[in-house]
């Protein structure tokens, strides 16, 4: 597989504490892959490694065929990220936030307005473009962060617990939208500890204590149980 996201034998530790233990995974283009894990399973560490905020001593990460270790610029250019923590500058307008990000990704200045309009249109946010980020509610801020993550047209989209703190309607809207994106060909890795965000035909990876303990199609994995019950029995943690 050349496109998509591929992780091979990735290990990482914080001093004596092992955070990730030989994690391998592959998400092809067009797939929505949910990475389910209880708190402390190592999800955030994995996200930090995938975004090169941290570098692991062992293991490889390929984003759209580019090795993050040897070709970080090409790999990061193909990666769109929605972080768990909000990363908007609340004093700037929506457009200013987007154009700051676009510049960080080297988008030409001339293309920026068109790209920003398109990104905002995709998420029905164009009317809010000139408002300060501070004026948006939690759901809209998240939507804007998603629009921003897609601004440079990445082929891999990484979302780290993107629905934390959102109400049910906003959660459903974001989840549906990202599923649509995957159907349109984007490779999506969605980390969560909430089982109701995962659909039966999604690919599922279960991360527990730094290891992938299950991988497959959600419907097949859970069998007759609800995903929540299955997850509970498998990890001993309520989902």
């Amino acid at each position, binding site marked *: 597989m050349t496109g998509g996201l591929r992780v091979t034998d990735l290990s990482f530790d914080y001093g004596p504490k092992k955070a990730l233990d030989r994690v391998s995974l592959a998400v092809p283009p067009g797939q929505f892959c949910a990475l389910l894990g209880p708190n402390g399973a190592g999800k955030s560490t994995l996200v930090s490694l995938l975004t*090169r905020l941290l570098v692991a001593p062992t293991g490889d990460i390929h984003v759209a065929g580019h090795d993050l270790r040897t070709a970080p610029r090409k790999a990061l250019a193909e990666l769109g990220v929605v972080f768990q923590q909000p990363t908007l500058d609340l004093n700037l307008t929506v457009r200013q936030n987007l154009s700051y990000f676009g510049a960080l990704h080297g988008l030409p200045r001339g293309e920026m307005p068109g790209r920003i309009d398109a990104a905002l249109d995709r998420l029905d946010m164009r009317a809010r473009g000139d408002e300060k980020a501070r004026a948006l509610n939690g759901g809209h801020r998240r939507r804007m962060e998603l629009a921003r993550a897609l601004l440079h047209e990445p082929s891999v989209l990484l979302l780290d617990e993107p629905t934390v703190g959102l109400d049910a309607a906003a959660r459903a809207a974001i989840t549906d939208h990202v599923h649509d994106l995957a159907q349109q060909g984007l490779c999506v890795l969605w980390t969560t500890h909430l089982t109701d965000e995962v659909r039966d035909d999604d690919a599922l990876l279960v991360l527990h204590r730094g290891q992938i303990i299950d991988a497959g199609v959600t419907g097949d994995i859970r069998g007759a149980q609800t995903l929540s019950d299955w997850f509970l029995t498998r990890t001993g943690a309520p989902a």
Partner: protein
Amino acid sequence: MSGFWGVTRAIVGREFLRFIHQRERFIAALVRPLVWLLIFAAGFRAALGLSIIPPYQTYITYETYIVPGLCAMVLLFNGMQSSLSLVYDREMGSMRLLLTSPYPRWWLLFCRLFGSTAISILQVYAFLAIAALFGITLPALGYIAVLPGLILGGLMLGALGLVLSSFISQLENFAGVMNFVIFPMFFLSSALYPLWKMAESSPLLRDICAFNPFTHVVELIRFLLYLQLNFHALAWVVLSTLVLSLLAVWGYDPARGLMKRKG
């Protein structure tokens, strides 16, 4: 190359926007040196007799003596302020956005450094303008000649801020920086008193002051304001800037795991 330029413009532009949004910061940055200049210096004027030392060619008032030190003080406080905002960015998450840009990390850091230095320099000129209004003036060309010194000094102190921000794990620890970095750097320098004066009371303190890179930022600025170049100070500042920049790049190396604590 246009991408590199775009990144620079975006990061520097954001620093400016942030600065404009924090009007209190600008006022505080101006009031601080003015308090020293108009109150402290006025009080000490009588107590401290200054002889003619280079670059001065006549007797000078104490107010005139401390202007270069106060310019450097603006740079120092701004460097620390920028360090504080880097730690804040890291806690708030916006640092992630910056560091996941595909551009090289050292370049992203340099742009931050450049942006905060540019803001420092604006503040220095605002301070010099107000000082001039109060009658404390310098040679006209000195205002232009000092610019390269301000840039270099700003970069050095900004790089110091970067290094500190990479080692400070939490925002709460920032008060320590104030006590253990800013105050010793400022007081153990030639900003408020010439080194020969310091040597009269303690040769050891004088040696510490002479070793302090901040002293050399002050002296570089002082000489440039009087259209002279102090090569010794220049060499010290260049060397310190290089060392601190390398340390900053090392401090932000992803393999070192700066983001670990927030991972």
